[in-house]
């Protein structure tokens, strides 16, 4: 793997400050499989990787009649398991 420095903010404000500080040299990682794949293939070479796992889900979850709105950092699988996605939307 390409070397990078891992940073782990404990809240959204810290995360935004780190992003502002490091700009294009930083990439965010949440679940992480996409970014790690790109780094392994050397398509992306960030100097800093900012991990979001300590952050709470962002924004409000809303269940509307014909759609589901999800905040950032929400796990799709957990949402399905909790029955929050109406079956007619699952195709």
């Amino acid at each position: 793997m390409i070397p990078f420095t891992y940073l782990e903010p404990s809240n959204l404000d810290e995360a935004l400050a780190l992003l502002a500080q490091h700009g294009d040299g930083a990439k965010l990682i949440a679940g992480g499989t996409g970014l790690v794949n790109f780094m392994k293939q050397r398509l992306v070479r960030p100097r800093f990787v900012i991990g979001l796992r300590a952050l709470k889900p962002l924004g409000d979850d809303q269940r509307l009649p014909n759609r589901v709105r999800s905040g950032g950092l929400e796990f799709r699988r957990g949402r399905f398991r909790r029955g929050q996605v109406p079956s007619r939307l699952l195709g």
Partner: protein
Amino acid sequence: MRRITLTLNGASISREVEDSRLLIEFLREDLKLTGTKESCGVGVCGACTVLLDGKPISSCLALAVHTDGCAVTTIEGIAEGDRLHPLQEAFLAHGGFQCGICTPGQILAAKALLDANPHPTWSEIQHWMMGNLCRCTGYYKIIESIAAACGAE
């Protein structure tokens, strides 16, 4: 470098790791736990599956630092002493493997299913196991092994 503390196969460990260390490198190279196998390296085949807080993940794409404070289970950790896990026994009894590269991942993926749902149907097993590829068995023996371990029909 960063110090991580995790529960690995039931025991607490603490190690210094490079920030960019992948979980599979940490397990195989730093801890010499070579039961976890890497195959595709891009998170598609499921061979490197381990359990992170009970959920199956691809260790080839996980950062070791992301296991800090978590519980990791590898194939080395599911037997109890000399007594194999019922899934391991079932794979042996029902011919659920041939070359064996995918087997640790198959068994851990199946364990995650049975821990959450001890009595899955045959089709639930088939659906769940879609993330774990095998180029030897043709899958029937794998599904039969898991079904035998949990009495599914």
